[in-house]
């Protein structure tokens, strides 16, 4: 799969919703469950700048293509947060700069230590850490895109579904970049394959699990991905991840979800 970074950058844009009638939510509001999931997603999108921070302390930022991508990606994700905040706003749930600041402050020492940890790993592994970062991004973006598609299916509201599909389409472009980069870099280095496999098998958690309370992670992932249909979606993700060099046989997402109490009545692959 080829990825043209120049085309991506030139066509990168803030997701639009001015043509979507958000007032439809006033007469036909979303369920509490969907709003809770949207709030989680909104927080995660706004938090992208912190993921960017974790990347910038690694050797990844020295790569021109990666750096350009990150600049565009960070802004697109910010606007995903803005779009979801607009939907939440119509439901009386306000998401403002001060609230986001408060939630980041609440993360405490974990948040302060994260970039230090990333920097240490990055410096130990060196350039090959970029492959891990790209693979990690690929898994996360797959998770995000699948979550939007699932929510659009579970809550087929005429004002929500089109917005979620637009966001998911942008996430798909992010998947393409991360996967292309990861595949190339994993092919080139045995150390990159070993370290990435170790990281994905032992450390990866659902998107948002480092910033949201565990109770929220379980609730939202359960709502979106539990049951046979959810598991099918999760296995599709795992199959795509397992196609990356050195990742054969991994069930990264299913394993992380089972660890959070999903699929108790469904057999493991």
């Amino acid at each position, binding site marked *: 799969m080829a990825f043209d970074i120049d085309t991506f*950058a030139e066509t990168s844009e803030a997701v639009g919703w001015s043509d979507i009638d958000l007032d439809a939510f006033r007469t036909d509001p979303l369920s509490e469950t969907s709003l809770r999931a949207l709030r989680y997603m909104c927080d995660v999108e706004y938090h992208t700048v*912190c993921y*960017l*921070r974790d990347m910038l302390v690694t050797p990844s930022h020295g790569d021109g293509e990666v750096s350009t991508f990150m600049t565009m990606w960070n802004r697109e994700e*910010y606007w995903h947060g803005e779009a979801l905040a607009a939907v939440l706003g119509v439901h009386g749930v306000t998401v403002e700069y001060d609230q986001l*600041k408060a939630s980041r402050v609440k993360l405490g020492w974990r948040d302060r230590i994260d970039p230090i940890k990333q920097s240490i790993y990055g410096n130990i592994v060196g350039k090959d850490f970029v492959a891990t970062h790209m693979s990690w991004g690929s898994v996360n973006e797959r998770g995000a895109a699948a979550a939007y598609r699932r929510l659009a299916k579970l809550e087929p509201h005429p004002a929500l579904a089109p917005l979620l599909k637009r966001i998911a389409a942008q996430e798909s472009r992010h998947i393409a970049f991360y996967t292309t980069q990861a595949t190339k870099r994993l092919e080139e280095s045995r150390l990159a394959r070993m370290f990435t496999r170790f990281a994905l098998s032992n450390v990866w958690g659902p998107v948002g699990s480092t910033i949201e309370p565990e109770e929220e992670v379980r609730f939202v992932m359960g709502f979106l991905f539990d049951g046979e249909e959810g598991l099918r979606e999760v296995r599709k993700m795992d199959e795509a991840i397992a196609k990356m060099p050195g990742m054969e046989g991994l069930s990264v997402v299913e394993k992380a979800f089972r660890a959070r109490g999903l699929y108790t009545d469904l057999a493991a692959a």
Partner: protein
Amino acid sequence: MSSTARFDVAAYVRAPFGPMRATLQGVGSALPADLADALRYVQRRAQGTGSWLSHVLVTATHKDARITAFLSTWAYEAHWFGDALSAIAGAGPVPAIRRGVAAKLRDRFGPLREAVVANLHGRALTGVQMTERLVDGWIVDAMLERAQQLAPTGVAEDLARIREGIARQGRFFAEAATDALSHSRAARVLARRRLAKRTWPIGADHEPAAATARALQALFGPDRSWATAIDSRIDSLPGLAGLHLVRRTVRKPGRPPFRMPLRSARSAAARSHRKDDAR
């Protein structure tokens, strides 16, 4: 925007400067080689924001959602300003960057060190970072203003648009810097120390010193008035009088100072503190 109105971040992020190539007037204009080289130098600064951001986002600054919203868009704009400069200046030699062992170690461990140090300084660092970008914006703008005077009309128009964008960014940095420096003695002391320690413009330390020297020479020749003018603007910031950063840059382009004005920092901070008490 009136001087009392707070910078509207929401409006800024909604309407950034994006790709400019399709609307540039000066692409293909014949430029003197040294002017094209100087524009490429500014382009590399604009598209090299990652290193500075890596030092900023590991500090308490990243918790401030208003600032991170601004910076996300600022980095986006900087990328496209750089892209426009690249199109105007055309392809050219990129200086061979030979990073010594110390510089490589700084590159690798700088953000790590900053993340640890940031936990000691807290929010005072945010004021320092905003001040750094304010001063850097003044220097880059002076370079582009001079390039505008030297360039043919089409290129001058393009540079004017870029300067318009930089001026808008500058309004945010000016507000954030002035606010922090006015209210925090720690920010003033730290800003004084860090600004004096830096190589200007930001990112110049990632290039051979000769590249900065060539760019400044091509644009300003023996003229020093621009540097004096920016130093005066720095003098007017709370607690930052007497640093002479830009005149130092002109004397020794691309090189950090041998000695940091620590004594001066203490006395200046003490003076600012006394002023605060008197208010």
